[in-house]
């Protein structure tokens, strides 16, 4: 009873594999649908990876190579797609060799997330060529060596949108502007400075694309409108931008097909799995980590979460008990979500909670409360939805939280 299958060979999957081996798990198999390991890191050729994990600023491919080295010697099945995971932890796979089933004692799902496409945000206008998600354009440019267009307009100012604005310029394209629906960008300040300001690319806050024009089947321009405080386009504020390509960077959603197939409970806010503090889903022995659990800001943090999960998976395989009944964590007062969604009454050790605030707030304490009493707090001069917050409760404080009838994570203003 010690076979671990990890679905996904990206940063979270590789970090989980390496850590599981360090924790004594002998029979580990990583399954990756692409022909090489590393996942999305392979196309993220900008630098800024690995500052926490390797104390060095690496590009995505270099970071992937480091992770692969840590997992060297572990069995990895590439070019293999997992079709389903059953509650009995049988994993149905397909590859060039055909269909086959692996029987596991524990499964860690690390399948990442997917970009929201045009259909998810309902932009009206022509159904023409020239509309790409930012990640698709990134793959075309950095892996295939193909420029998807000459003159770009970018909708969405998350980090991928910002990074692709700079990429388009570096590879010889033009960028009209980046439009952002919200009155603030969720991207890192560094990326706004170094991907937009350095190249004089305008950032249009509170703006969105309201029409797409085409000519001969190819995009020929977009209409951009200002939006009011309820995010509705303001009539009369339209402006037309001539361009041949629209890149969409409008959000990431955990990839949950395998979770749903296994019958695991999902969280409507994170849109990923609901897990306990071991990152185990509602299906016994089925764990979930990284962007598949909730979308992270940094690959390093996805890896850290995966390492924690691998340790718990190793304990599970060694037959250690789950740690008692579940206790739900409630988020209120400006906290949008927290992971894990459940604590275990009988769990021991420190507790790490990850959370996001709902809007930008200044001078607040992030407060963990047990039956109305604060047991732990973390002060933030500024907290924004784009930056995940981490609460690490030492064992004795974690124990008070685990024992409470009502566990609440909330924000408290500084007096």
């Amino acid at each position, binding site marked *: 009873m010690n076979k671990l299958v990890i679905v996904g060979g990206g940063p979270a999957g590789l970090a989980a594999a390496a850590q599981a081996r360090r924790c004594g798990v002998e029979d580990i198999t990583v399954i990756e649908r692409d022909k090489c390991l590393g996942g999305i890191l392979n196309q993220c*050729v900008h630098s800024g990876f690995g500052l926490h994990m390797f104390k060095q600023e690496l590009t*995505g491919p270099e970071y992937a190579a480091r992770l692969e080295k840590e997992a060297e010697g572990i069995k990895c099945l590439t070019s293999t797609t997992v079709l389903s995971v059953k509650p009995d932890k049988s994993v149905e796979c397909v590859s060039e060799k055909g269909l086959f089933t692996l029987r596991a004692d524990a499964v860690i799902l690390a399948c990442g997330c997917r970009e929201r496409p045009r259909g998810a945000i309902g932009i009206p206008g022509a159904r023409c060529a020239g509309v790409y998600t930012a990640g698709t354009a990134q793959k075309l440019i*950095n892996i*295939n*060596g193909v420029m998807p267009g000459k003159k770009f307009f970018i909708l969405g100012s998350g980090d991928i949108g910002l990074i692709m604005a700079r990429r388009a310029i570096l590879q*010889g394209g033009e960028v009209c502007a980046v439009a952002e629906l919200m009155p603030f960008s969720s991207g890192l300040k560094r990326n706004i*400075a170094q991907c937009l300001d350095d190249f004089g690319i305008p950032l249009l806050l509170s703006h969105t694309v309201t029409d797409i024009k085409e000519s001969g089947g190819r995009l020929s321009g977009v209409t951009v409108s200002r939006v009011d405080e309820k995010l509705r386009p303001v009539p009369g504020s339209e402006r037309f931008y001539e361009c041949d390509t629209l890149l969409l960077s409008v959000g990431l959603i955990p990839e949950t097909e395998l979770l749903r197939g296994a019958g695991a409970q999902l969280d409507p806010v994170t849109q990923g799995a609901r897990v306990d503090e071991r990152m185990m889903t509602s299906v016994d022995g089925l764990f979930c980590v990284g962007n598949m659990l909730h979308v992270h800001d940094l690959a390093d943090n996805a890896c850290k979460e995966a390492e924690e999960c691998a340790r718990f998976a190793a304990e599970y395989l060694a037959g250690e008990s789950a740690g008692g009944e579940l206790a739900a964590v409630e988020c209120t007062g400006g906290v949008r979500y927290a992971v894990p969604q459940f604590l275990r009454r009988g769990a021991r050790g420190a507790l790490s909670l990850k959370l996001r605030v709902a809007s930008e707030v200044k001078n607040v304490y992030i407060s963990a409360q047990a039956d109305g009493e604060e047991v732990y707090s973390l002060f933030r001069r500024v907290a924004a939805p784009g*930056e995940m917050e981490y609460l690490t409760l030492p064992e004795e404080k974690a124990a008070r939280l685990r024992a409470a009838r009502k566990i609440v994570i909330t924000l408290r203003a500084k007096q």
Partner: protein
Amino acid sequence: MKEFVCIRCPLGCALTAEEKDGEVIVTGNSCPRGREYAVAEMTDPVRTFSVSVRVKGGERGAVALRVSVPVNKKFIAPIAEQARHTVLTAPVRAGDTVIKNAASSGADLIAVASVARE
């Protein structure tokens, strides 16, 4: 006088910097890191970046090259230009120095990944 948003932490202070008698005067910062950033941006604004170049005869069509050291941002455009006119032939090995002293910036361009022959 120049204005920028500090990028050293999520606070994002609005900085202004002015050069007076060979010294950079910074205002709007709430910590020493803000001053440091503004002075660097005024005197030698350096950047780390990578460019994707085409690869012939490989299992994929492109590979990215990164600068070996941070370079002043005035070299971004000339380095990108040089990279656009570069076509490599597979195999490429991660860590290879592909272009020495790119656009006379003092930085080399290093392959960040390997590309095997097709």
